[in-house]
């Protein structure tokens, strides 16, 4: 079922030195608007291997969702434009592919779930019909086969009494159950990569925990690569293997999740971690990142974070820092990343 049209070899892709399952290379995205050009992605690179969870962390406007939409090929172009970069899936550049071939990848190899399940589901069709839609149109199943498979998928995402509920409409489900329906839909074609864009932001904490558990189990059982897009530092710490922190369209830090939380190598990451209320912060003023995120129509010169950075020096206002390799697959786009790590900056 998951036979591949896009790849010549079917050997499993290995991490490290070998080829990655999915690789974003130096991607640029800009939006052409009436008021000018907004450069929302400025040279983003990351990669994903089977069975691993990459968290893409960032605040609103950091470009984390746009990167995902570029991977899926669902950016509205125009106004969006991709002036540079590559997105390699099993070694083939998705951006250079004809649309017909790209359709074979979208949903089948790389699938996505969205934040707001209620608005992502069609209110006038039963959920089973919606889950089975891709099976009918793309896998050529009959209505009955597809509906049976939909029940299996609903079982897989642990919707109780799946057989009885397959004909229910989205409004008859709770928020958490709707998100499960979305996940079932995304899994219908057995994708190798699942992109989850803020999958639990609209949910309550107890339900969020259930959904994150489910995503973790599915990733392990189906050996999928999971890209988790979120702004929640708690969720990231709970499930991610690696983390890419985005700011103003760039990845400012990329590392193993433990390293990032223990010793952030970028002042923005440090600022984010410091601004969460913790047990010992009670009664004290919370550390904040001063100022506001930049306007991407008129980004600051040099490092985009320098107007808000407490360590900013004159070089930061003139030179854009390159992604500095700190070893062990760790990078930081700060002129003083090494100093941050060995503690001489603080």
């Amino acid at each position, binding site marked *: 079922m998951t036979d591949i049209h896009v790849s010549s070899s079917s050997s499993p892709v290995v991490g490290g030195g070998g080829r990655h399952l999915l690789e974003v290379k130096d991607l640029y995205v800009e939006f052409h608007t009436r008021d000018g050009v907004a450069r929302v992605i400025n040279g983003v690179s990351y990669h994903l291997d089977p069975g691993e969870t990459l968290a893409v962390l960032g*605040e*609103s406007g950091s470009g984390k969702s746009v990167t995902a939409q570029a991977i899926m090929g669902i950016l509205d172009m125009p106004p969006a434009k991709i002036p540079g970069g590559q997105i390699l899936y099993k070694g083939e550049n998705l951006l250079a592919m004809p649309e017909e071939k790209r359709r074979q990848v979208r949903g089948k190899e790389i699938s996505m779930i969205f934040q707001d399940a209620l608005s992502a589901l069609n209110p006038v069709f039963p959920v089973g019909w919606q889950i089975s839609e891709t099976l009918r149109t793309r896998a050529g199943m009959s209505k009955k086969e597809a509906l049976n498979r939909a029940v299996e998928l609903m079982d897989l995402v642990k919707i109780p009494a799946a057989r009885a509920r397959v004909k229910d409409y989205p409004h008859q489900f*709770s*928020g*958490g*159950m709707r998100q499960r329906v979305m996940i079932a839909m995304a899994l219908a074609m057995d994708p190798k990569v699942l992109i989850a864009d803020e999958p639990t932001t609209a949910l*309550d*904490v*107890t*339900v*969020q*925990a*259930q959904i*994150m*558990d489910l995503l973790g189990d599915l990733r392990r059982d189906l050996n999928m690569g999971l890209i988790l897009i979120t*702004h*929640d*530092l*708690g*969720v*990231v*710490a*709970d499930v*991610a293997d690696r983390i890419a922190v985005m700011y103003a369209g760039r990845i400012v830090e990329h590392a193993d*999740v*433990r390293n990032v*939380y223990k010793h952030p190598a970028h002042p923005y990451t440090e*600022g*984010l*971690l410091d*601004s*969460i*209320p*913790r*047990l010992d*912060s*009670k009664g004290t*003023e*919370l*550390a*904040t*990142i001063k100022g*506001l*995120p930049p306007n991407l129509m008129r980004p600051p010169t040099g490092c985009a974070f320098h107007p808000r950075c407490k360590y900013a020096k004159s070089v930061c206002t003139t030179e854009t820092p390159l992604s500095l390799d700190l070893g062990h697959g760790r990078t930081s786009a700060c002129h003083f990343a090494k100093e941050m790590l060995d503690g001489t900056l603080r």
Partner: protein
Amino acid sequence: MAHSAENVSGARPAGEPLLRVENLVKHFPITQGILFKKKVGAVKAVDGVSFELHRGETLGIVGESGCGKSTLAKLLMRLETPTAGRAMLKGKDIFKVSGSELRRMRRNIQMVMQDPYTSLNPRMTVGDIIGEPYEIHTEVAPKGDRQRRVQELLELVGLNPEHINRYPHQFSGGQRQRIGIARALALKPEIIVCDEPVSALDVSIQAQVINLLEKLQGELDLSYIFIAHDLSVVRHISDRVGVMYLGKMVEVGTDAEIYERPTHPYTQALLSAVPVPDPDARTHRDVIRLVGDVPSPANPPSGCRFRTRCWKAQERCSVEEPLLIRRGVDPHPSACHFAELRQVVG
């Protein structure tokens, strides 16, 4: 003398409370028929909630969506009329006053809304938005004095007083929330009800607004009712915390009592579901996973409302409703027949 609310208030500072809420109930009728509306049931949004609020204190209210926390806020603002119960503000029932007395009372309780994007009129300038309360409560600021007052308020919340003629869209989310806070402060209230004041904001901006609220509390001796679903934020800002489930308060206590010595199973599950921003905590966390969803408040379970999702539920729980009283195990009240200590967060 009046009521036996003493046993449901948790550890608290001595003295007469500023606000005493007793057995507050709000049922929304469910009707059928168009011309002759027949009442067929009721959504029990708030179903017997009691608490006290002291001067200069912050009472946090936590709970998941649908637990009635926002209805509680609306009741306290007198935007809804309660089905039963009373709320004594400095010895007077806020639901009994009317006319000019009601207007004076309203000055004393103000509100900060959740969404800074929809709670400010886009066609009004910031000066008009913050100054609008003076149109109704003319006695607070005479006409010639208003502009100066509004500028003082802008300065107080950390905005530039010169921006008095700007429109809401010219401000960022965090700045808009500051405008909302300035508006709430205009009439010099003693109590501010904050309904999810930071949940629409990015992490780095959240901390700025929390710090502002704490600063204002110190300077103006304000009392807050702080409603939120983010448990770490609530812990940071609150002196006492009340946990709500399906229209009932299930546990009340100081922040240390609720977070370090919770005795109600729902509180324990809620706390354990919060993702901790520490990757090392993954392995040794005591995680309680609740099954299912919150039942409908139109048809809550008999006896204890949490019993359908509780792992401790027994025969007694379905028959006898547990009262919010002190339960031997710890000096703070808990509405569980089988209350016992269980530490879930380090």
